[in-house]
Structures are given as structure tokens and as C-alpha cells.
């Protein structure tokens, strides 16, 4: 419980296996990239402190496994997320098509209070591959999908080259922060001895 108020933001990264979720995270947090593919088992967790508009906050990044066999962990992992990052590989149409499933799945499992305005960010990764020649999902198509889902911010990145990664996460942090802004007043009941020690049912005002 730090005396100076800091904000912690839970960020979930979702997407098909192999689109580069872990690489993006490693590039962002550790400024490192490895060509070797290592499947994530369950989930990986990384922490990054970020300064944004004079405020210090911590990103708690949940890098999930893309494989379907891990999807049973859904509720547990998605609960209480402040932002969800959907990642696809611009060189794989299937990974792009699946964005819709990932988004739906997240909204069902996490059941945020305001699903319409829940902050998502979409990242098209691996723009560096083959000089862009093997690309199958056009930026236009991706942006159109993002626009249709309530203007989701869109970034094209290369985790390998470190292109646009910082910018994408800046946006993620900004959006997550925005959604967590509402200040709440904590006001529990007071014991009412007169009515057999039952708390009044005025409810918590938070």
C-alpha cells in the first residue's frame, strides 16, 4: 500500500498462437527479441512501470497462451482487466478472422460493466516479415474491422524490429487509464444496534 497513489492496470493480451504476443511483450518490457518460438504455457506475467502525464502507474501484463486448450482458464484470467489487446499476424488471414472470436470470448468471460466502451487495442504484428511481401491482411481491412467495433485503436508493429511497439503500449496504457478513472466513494453501513445488529440495507455507495 504505497502512500503515493499509484494505479495498477491489468492488461490482457489475446490472439492466436504464434502471432507474437509474447514477443511483443518482451520487446516492450525487456527490449529483447528472440526468433525462437516458445509456446506460452497458460500465461506469462510481466510488470512494467510507466509514466503518463505526470502519473506513475504499473502495467500488469497478462500474456496468455493462444492454444485452444488453455481457453478454459478464461474467466480467471480475464476478470478485472482494464484493457484487452487483440493481436493478429498480418501474414495470416486466419489469425485476423479470429479477432472477432477473441473479442467475443473476452466480453463473455470478463463481462465488463460497459462492454460497448471496454477499451480494446488491436495490433497487427510481424509487418517486417519478408519485407511485407507475404502480407495478406491489408491495413485498410483491419482498420475497417476496428471501426466497426466501436473505433478500436489500431497499430501495426514489428516485435522483431521494435517498430511501433512503444506507441501501441502507450495507447493501451492511456485507454486503460481512461476506463479506470471514475473515483468512487467508499461508504459501508454503520451497525444499527436497535434492529438486532443487522446492517441497514442502504447499500454501499461505491
Amino acid at each position, binding site marked *: 500500500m504505497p502512500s503515493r497513489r499509484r494505479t495498477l492496470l491489468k492488461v490482457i493480451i489475446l490472439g492466436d498462437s504464434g502471432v507474437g504476443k509474447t514477443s511483443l511483450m518482451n520487446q516492450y518490457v525487456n527490449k529483447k527479441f528472440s526468433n525462437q518460438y516458445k509456446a506460452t504455457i497458460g500465461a*506469462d506475467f510481466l510488470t512494467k512501470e510507466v509514466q503518463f502525464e505526470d502519473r506513475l502507474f504499473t502495467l500488469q501484463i497478462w500474456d496468455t497462451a493462444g492454444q485452444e486448450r488453455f481457453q478454459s482458464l478464461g474467466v*480467471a484470467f480475464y476478470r478485472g482487466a482494464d484493457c484487452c489487446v487483440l493481436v493478429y499476424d498480418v501474414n495470416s488471414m486466419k489469425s485476423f478472422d479470429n479477432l472477432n472470436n477473441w473479442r467475443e470470448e473476452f466480453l463473455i468471460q470478463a463481462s465488463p460493466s460497459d462492454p460497448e466502451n471496454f477499451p480494446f487495442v488491436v495490433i497487427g504484428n510481424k509487418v517486417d516479415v519478408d519485407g511485407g511481401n507475404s502480407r495478406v491482411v491489408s491495413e485498410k481491412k483491419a482498420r475497417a474491422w476496428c471501426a466497426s467495433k466501436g473505433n478500436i485503436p489500431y497499430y501495426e508493429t514489428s516485435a522483431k524490429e521494435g517498430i511501433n511497439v512503444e506507441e501501441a503500449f502507450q495507447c493501451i496504457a492511456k485507454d486503460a487509464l481512461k476506463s479506470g478513472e471514475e473515483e468512487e466513494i*467508499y461508504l459501508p*453501513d454503520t451497525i444499527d444496534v436497535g434492529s438486532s445488529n443487522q446492517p441497514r440495507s442502504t*447499500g454501499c455507495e461505491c
Partner: protein
Amino acid sequence: MSSESRASSSGDEASEPNPNPIPKPPEDQLAALALSETDSHANGVVHGSAGENNHNHQEIESDEEEVEANSAAPGLAEVEESREGLPRGSVGGVVWARTNSELEVDGPSSPSSSGYAGERGSSSASSGGSGIDEISEVRNEEVVDGFSDLQASWVPGKRHVDEDDASLSWRKRKKHFFILSNSGKPIYSRHGDEHKLAGFSATLQAIISFVENGGDHVKLVRAGKHQVVFLVKGPIYLVCISCTEEPYESLRMQLELIYGQMLLILTKSVNRCFEKNPKFDMTPLLGGTDIVFSSLIHSFSWNPATFLHAYTCLPLAYATRQAAGAILQDVADSGVLFAILMCKHKVISLVGAQKASLHPDDMLLLSNFVMASESFRTSESFSPICLPRYNPMAFLYAYVHYLDADTYLMLLTTSSDAFYHLKDCRIRIEMVLLKSSVLSEIQRSMIDGGMRVEELPLDPLPRSASFSPHLGQHTLSTDSPDRFREPYIGVGGPAGLWHFIYRSIFLDQYVSSEFSPPISSPRQQKRLYRAYQKLYASMHDRGIGPHKTQFRRDENYVLLCWVTQDFELYAAFDPLADKALAIKTCNRVCQWVKDVENEIFLLGASPFSW
């Protein structure tokens, strides 16, 4: 003093003609309960073999910090299964000197060699240049005066804020406590910075949720020397990671108390915040209460109330306590729910409005909250608090005022605008206490201390006589200063009795003897409490218990525990103590407690339903 001479000294005592070896208490009931060796056989005595408990020595402990002696930290590494790039067990460079010498110091061959305490004290862990200087040694001088509490040497507040789960030093801490939300957001960590531990916190949540997903609950994970204990309280997860060898039940109870402390500050209404908003971040609500939790965790190693679920009273003459109770009762009748007068963690008197009863755990958490928060000392305060055992859902209001450095008055009410009324009550109480010299009696009792094993009366005396000259009104004012000047070279009380705790089941109160050599350093005291705690857990184990008596001998102590319907007695003896004599001594302790119960317990003077 050599062990030989000591053994003979207890032998002397045995041969001493004792007209009435087993005191005949006035009440038939108590007489029937007198502990005898044959009885204990019938009840199934557990004989602990020497060496059974030897792991305790291998802990390098200072009074507060506990750091793992082993160079590898396999337990933590295993928990963090999904983290990469951490120095998993590869701890090469730093050397934590393990001081096996303690084993010898402690060995039955020379348990009371001269400078026993000093030797203990000097066997400090060398920190080998690791930069963790907190593993400093116990300061013996603090306990020489006989009334030291472990609190004295404890530095409040959180340390090691720079640490996180990648720090070697963090991984070596022997006992971690975490509070997190069910979305994996950190709320509290005993060591290290909560935000830096966000990844670790997420890992814990993942483990708990993974098991819950399978329709099950994870309670305990053993990983090498480490135990990972989980407690799920709705949206709040509590985790303890420990390699202190404490029983699972004890660690779980400590987590319960930490949860209770959180409720005392916030009430269970936080659950609704999580229901409404799973993203809910509790840390701002708990801002500044870090010290309350660290103080509670510290009390796990010095305050027997944390495992006995009973409170203890400051020894006072019966009339003095009555006088305090009367004035408290007076204000309680004017709309105060509870009026509690305490001195440090000891109760002077307390009264409650009709039908209202206070659980000892609530008292522990409340007094910890008040004592840990510095702001209560400097001004009269009015603060919302929740008594989790009384009503976890709602707030009460506590008026708190310190009457002197250690003595404080707490008036609890349900009315949020009762401040001025309670202030008036306090002024009235304070005046009466001053006039009737209760406050000065309190201060004298603080200096004089409580029961001392050295003063255990040899023979049962008529009840009118005071067995302990410094207890209550029989105090000779010239007596105590002398006592403190005398250097203790003693070996405790008769028959090698070193220490005891007596818990009255009916009163929900306990009395603990003062610490005196050879149990002198905070570290030794902590070790003894841990041994009691283990004994308590084994006596109350539902699987194999309940037991009535237990006699356990290892190279540290002879521990004797005796549980009846009315009381529980925990006694520690010299490891060479004679069994029959120890049993006889326990009977005498019970008689002694009975004889001075007017002074050491708060007896049902108030219409208080316990």
C-alpha cells in the same frame, strides 16, 4: 552454571521435603483435575523424541526478519513456474553463513552454560556482503530488565520496498504474506513493493483460479521446505509462503487474522465493490495502513493471543480493576457499545452494553490497529472501525484516546455523531482514574511485570497470602528496583520451569509468565512461542485429538501441555527436567494461577456475556 550443577539443583529440589507435593486446591473440581503422571499415561502422553524438533535451530533469525538459511530458494522458484529469466535457485555468490553452533549451544549437554544467552546472541548470521543488513542480531540488553517486550526491538513499518520477486533477498525472506484481489491485482505484500510484485500476484491468482476452475480449492502447496497456504475470502485472496515450519493450521489462522484486520479497516462491504466492478483497486482504501499489517504479522511471533484466541490482562489488585470497571460501566450505560481500557496489548478492564460481546480476536485486531497507528497517540481520535467477529458488514465508531504513553481508552459506538459525547465520557473516566490512582497503579504494574516462574510458591499457602509479592496491592515499592538490578543468572523456576501460559477457557483470557533467562532474547522467545503454537495446533488437531496431556522432550525444552474443560496450560521446562517433577510443578502453577486469579484476570464483574 553448568548443566551438571543445574541438574543437581533440580535434584535438590526433588529431595527437598515437601509436605504436600500435589497441592490440594480448595475446590473439589480443581482437585479432581490435578495432573499426575499416571493420569497422563492413561490419557495417552505423546513423547517427543529428542531431535524431532531440531529444524528450528537451522533458522537464521533475528527478532523480526527471517531469512532463509539455505542458499537455494526452490519453493518460490517453483511457484513462479511461468516466469522466465529469473535466477532460479542459482544463488551462487551470496553466502548465508549457517550457524550450526547453535545446535551445540542448545544441546542437552550444555543448555545452560554460562553466557547462554550471549552465545546465542553472538551466533549471528553473517550477511556475506549481500547488502541485507537487517539480519542483525538480537540485542540482549533489551531483555535484561525483565519486562521487555519483543515490540521494543521491532522497527515498525515496511522495509525492503525496493525488493521484488526477482531480488535474491526477497526470495530468501522466510515468511511472506500477500493479499490480492481475485483479478490478480496486488493489495498488500509484507516484503517488497506491491506494484513491482504485480506479476507475482498474477501468478498467485492464476494458481488459485486454475484450481477453482476445476471446481476445487487449493489450501496448501508444499514445495521443498516451503509451505504455500491459500485462503480465499470471496474476492479477496490471501497467501502465505513460509519456510518457518509452523503448522498449516497456524499459518491459515494467521491469514484469517490478516483478513480480519483488513475487515476492521474496511468492512466486508468491499465485496460489493468487487461485485460491481471487478477492476476495483483496493489499495487506495488501505492507504497508510501498511504499518497495521506489518505490526500484526510481527505479533504472530510474540503475542500468544494470535494463536490462543484469548486476551490477557494487566495484573492489578482486584479493587483497582473493579474501580476501573465501575467507571467504564457508567459510560457504557450512556449509549456506549463497548468501553475498553488497555495498556499496550493488555486489558485493564472492559465492559459492553447488554448482550454485546467482544471476541478476543476482535480485541487483538482493534488494539493492534490502535497501537500501530501513530496518529492515535498524538490526539483524540474518532475513527470508523469494524469488528469482524461482531459484525463484519458494518462500521462502528471508535473514540480513542491515550491516557499516558501506554494506556489508552477505546469507546465504541454506533453513532457517527457521538464524538462530543464520548469526549465527555473520556474526561469523566480520566478524572476518576486519576483520582482513584488507577493510572498510577497501572504504571506500577507495567514496571513490576506479571508472574515470574522464579516466584512459583513451593508450598500451597493460605489463599489470603500473596504468592507474588509484586502482584497487586501487596507490592513492596522497594522490591522491584532491586529485582531489576540483580543480574539474572537463574535457570528459571523450580524443577527447571522456564515459562508457562495458562489459558482460562471460561474467561477467554490467558496469563503468560514473564520471560526470564534462559529464555531471554526475543529470538528465543519467538522460538518458544512457535513451539507453543505447534503444541496448541497438535492439541487441537481434529484428526488425532483432542488430547488432554502432552509431554514432549527435545533438545530445546521439555514442553508440557494440559487441557481440561476449564483451562489449558502450556509449560516449558529445561530439556533435562524430570518428568514427575515437571508434572508436579504444573499442578503448582495451576494452583498459583487460581490463587492470584483476582489479580491477573478480569472476572465477571460486568453483565458481560462471554
